[in-house]
């Protein structure tokens, strides 16, 4: 099955999920938006983001680049604004733009996609832009972006799979990622990889967009995410332990105070039942309580008439602080601050004898209470008691530690109601004892594993590259051999073709001679017989055709010779060949009344004499044929000039010249610019071109200073020392 089918199905699936979730928000279906009550819900805006993402990736795949850019811009803008909301802590109203969230799920910002979700969408938007870039590293960057998204969603999914729910949101300070959000990101990641692989890389496989650094990056992202989440989880646990310990001490203290109060009440009742009980007995009785309750520091019995009736001031100095105890009401409890302690004053009002306004005041020390009940906590915690932001008692005077982990428990101390708090502030020793090695172990282990994976992947990729190179080299070798074989085959075929052309042309010569000969004889006979001259008119075209055919055969044979005479190069004097060519055409030059001028230095060239002569004969012949203009003397200039390591041989005339559009075409085989009656075969200039190629030179035509055409050919200079230049001009009539 082709990858494109999977791509199409994935795009459809992601779009379907997003549409379903959006509908779920409209119809308020918890099952669709959350899947499970313990999971995080996929926000409406997240679903909208996935719809845009699916459309963008579909457009990228189907090459609708402009529409893809529009979706990328929309995605970038929407989630850029969401990120801005996070950074600035300002609500600009896009969270509830489309739907009012019916599920709040302890979100700090109802309806707003999580910061991690926002980041993933921004990365996917960036992917849209970068993937359309022509930058050579674009594929690499796109792969990296995709890996970041995949890494983040994998970490969230891993959290769901292993049951550590906190991982879905990375940590306590980021909102969670829904399970279907994580799956949709994975699918988008796969789509992105497949797009890169199939469209942008040479091998056109979806996995070819991977780079060795990508799995390592994914591992690092996962390691950091899991480690951060574990740290947050551990912090939650520690906070819970502190709260538990705090509550334990607080409850003990509440219990002790309550027990104390009950004891006082029992004591008061005993006194009331034995009104004749001497005060000494009360004191003894009271002392028993003092001994039983170490936190109790003093007791006082007071009567409304004469004030202090009885005191048991173990800590009389503290009593001075109790200036005006409340003498009305029933039982009261209050907290009084001293220099280094806080006193819990319990007052029981009761009637005794005739005095109905007597009261028992019991004073307990908070310090003693804490020392008694919470001695085991003092090592790990600083404990303080405060009410209405006023510290009544504290075990330590200096608080420099981060108090963010402070836990509080409310004490039942009467008059202060629920305001009296018992706070536990963990000491550094507690943190040291409570420290969990796992977050760091995961971090170090993960990074170490990433390093190992990097080395392995790098080595594997190096091996793969080496293997690919070796395969390519082997393929190249095979191709080179195949090329060599086909080249040899082509050369053989070419040679065969040349041989065939030669044989054909050669074999045509004999019948042509017969046609020519017998036609001439027929003509002679007709003349002798004085036959009507109209027959002569009929014979003339036959003779012309035979002549044309003869020339064509001669030219083809010359062309064949050119191919066969490639290796007979030697140092020759170009001026001699020019003279030879001019001499051979002397008769034609004279009859045409043309003037030929030879200019330039006698330059030696390393060339095949026969071929160079053939070139000159062709060029001079062409000038004679095509450059003649009625009423104008035909001028032909032949010149030789040195151009670097080459010698340029030019033949120019004052004829009509050659239009620029035909200047390349004239060198092709059988290309003629003249009409059918013109005396040319269309082979001559091809011979010139071929000779130039054989000599590693080139042939071209341009406009002549004489007004006509200037044909030039370059030939290599001779190896032998150059002949001394002398600007001679030879004129041939």
């Amino acid at each position, binding site marked *: 099955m082709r990858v494109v089918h999977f791509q199409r199905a994935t795009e459809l699936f992601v779009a379907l999920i997003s549409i379903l979730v959006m509908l779920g928000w409209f119809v308020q279906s918890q099952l669709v938006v959350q899947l499970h009550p313990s999971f995080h819900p996929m926000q409406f805006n997240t679903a909208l983001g996935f719809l845009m993402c699916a459309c963008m990736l579909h457009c990228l795949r189907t090459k609708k680049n402009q529409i893809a850019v529009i979706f990328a811009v929309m995605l970038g803008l929407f989630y850029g604004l969401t990120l801005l909301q996070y950074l600035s802590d300002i609500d600009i109203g896009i969270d509830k733009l489309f739907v009012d969230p019916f599920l709040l799920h302890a979100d700090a910002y109802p309806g707003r996609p999580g910061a991690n979700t926002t980041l993933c969408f921004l990365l996917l938007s960036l992917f849209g832009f970068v993937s359309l870039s022509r930058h050579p590293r674009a594929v690499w960057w796109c792969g990296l972006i995709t890996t970041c998204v995949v890494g983040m969603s994998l970490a969230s999914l891993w959290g769901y799979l292993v049951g550590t729910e906190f991982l879905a949101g990375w940590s306590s300070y980021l909102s969670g990622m829904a399970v279907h959000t994580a799956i949709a990101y994975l699918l988008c990641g796969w789509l992105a990889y497949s797009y890169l692989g199939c469209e942008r890389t040479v091998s056109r496989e979806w996995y070819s967009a991977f780079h060795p650094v990508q799995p390592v990056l994914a591992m690092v992202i996962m390691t950091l995410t899991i480690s951060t989440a574990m740290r947050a989880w551990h912090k939650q646990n520690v906070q819970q332990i502190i709260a538990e310990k705090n509550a334990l001490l607080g409850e003990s203290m509440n219990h002790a105070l309550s027990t104390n109060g009950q004891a006082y009440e029992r004591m008061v009742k005993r006194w009331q039942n034995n009104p004749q009980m001497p005060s000494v007995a009360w004191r003894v009785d009271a002392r028993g309580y003092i001994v039983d309750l170490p936190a109790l520091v003093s007791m006082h019995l007071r009567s409304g008439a004469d004030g202090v009736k009885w005191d048991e001031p173990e800590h009389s100095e503290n009593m001075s602080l109790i200036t005006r105890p409340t003498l009305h009401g029933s039982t009261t409890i209050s907290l009084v601050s001293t220099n280094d302690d806080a006193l819990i004053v319990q007052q029981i009002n009761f009637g005794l004898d005739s005095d109905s306004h007597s009261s028992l005041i019991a004073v307990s020390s908070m310090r003693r209470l804490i020392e008694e009940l919470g001695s085991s906590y003092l090592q790990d915690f600083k404990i303080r008691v405060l009410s209405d932001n006023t510290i009544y008692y504290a075990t330590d005077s200096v608080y420099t530690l981060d108090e963010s982990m402070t836990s509080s428990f409310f004490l039942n101390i009467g008059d202060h109601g629920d305001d009296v708090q018992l706070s536990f502030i963990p000491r550094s020793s507690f943190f040291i004892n409570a420290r969990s090695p796992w977050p760091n172990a995961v971090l170090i282990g993960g990074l170490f594993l990433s390093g190992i994976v990097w080395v392995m992947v790098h080595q594997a990729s190096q091996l793969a590259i080496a293997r690919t190179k070796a395969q390519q080299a082997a393929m190249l070798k095979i191709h080179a051999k195949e090329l060599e074989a086909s080249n040899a085959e082509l050369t053989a075929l070419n040679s065969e073709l040349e041989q065939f052309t030669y044989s054909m042309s050669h074999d045509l010569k004999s019948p042509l001679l*017969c046609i020519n000969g017998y036609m001439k004889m027929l003509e002679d006979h007709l003349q002798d017989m004085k036959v009507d001259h109209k027959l002569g008119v009929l014979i003339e075209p036959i003779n012309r055709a035979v002549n044309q055919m003869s020339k064509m055969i001669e030219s083809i044979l010359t062309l064949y010779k050119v191919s066969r005479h490639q290796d007979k190069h030697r140092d020759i004097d170009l001026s001699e060949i020019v003279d030879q060519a001019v001499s051979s055409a002397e008769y034609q030059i004279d009859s045409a009344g043309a003037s030929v001028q030879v200019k330039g230095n006698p330059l030696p060239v390393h060339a095949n004499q026969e071929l160079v002569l053939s070139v000159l004969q062709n060029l001079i012949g062409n000038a004679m044929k095509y450059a003649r203009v009625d009423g104008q003397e035909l001028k032909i200039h032949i010149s030789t000039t040195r151009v670097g390591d080459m010698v340029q041989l030019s033949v120019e005339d004052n004829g009509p010249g050659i239009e620029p559009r035909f200047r390349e075409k004239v060198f092709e085989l059988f290309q003629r610019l003249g009409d059918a009656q013109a005396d040319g075969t269309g082979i001559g200039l091809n011979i010139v071109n071929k000779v130039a190629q054989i000599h590693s030179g080139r042939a071209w035509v341009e406009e002549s200073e004489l007004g006509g055409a200037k044909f030039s050919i370059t030939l290599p200079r001779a190896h032998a020392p150059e002949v001394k230049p002398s600007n001679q001009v030879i004129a041939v009539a």
Partner: protein
Amino acid sequence: MSKIAHRTTHFLLVEDDDDQANLFQMSMARVGSELSVTRMRNGEEALSFLKQEHPYENAEHPDLVLMDLNMPRLSGHDVIAEMNTCPALSMIPVVVLTSSDDDADRRRAYAAHASGYVVKPIEFGEFRNMVNDIEDFWAQWNCPCPD
């Protein structure tokens, strides 16, 4: 211009193409009356003629052999080579008369001690000139080897 030849000169034309042979013979007839041309159609016939084999037992050795190269059964090169093996025949001059201007053919002919190598021109006027020149040289100025 003094003429050396005192008897009718005898040319042996070895040519497989009837039309060309006729053309040559007609052209030859126009230029020389004291000239006889015997034509053989291929190399085998030519060798039989030269070796005076049946049915040419009474045939005389020609003064000159005009030999085409590309012929069926036995090529011109083969005939020349065969003639070289026979002392009586190796004295007879052979002029190759062919349409091939291939260097290889030329070299091979001269290597076999051919007396000349003439490429048949296509143009009939030139062909006549060529026939004239052959007749001039071989029938008038050339001194044949005594029998």
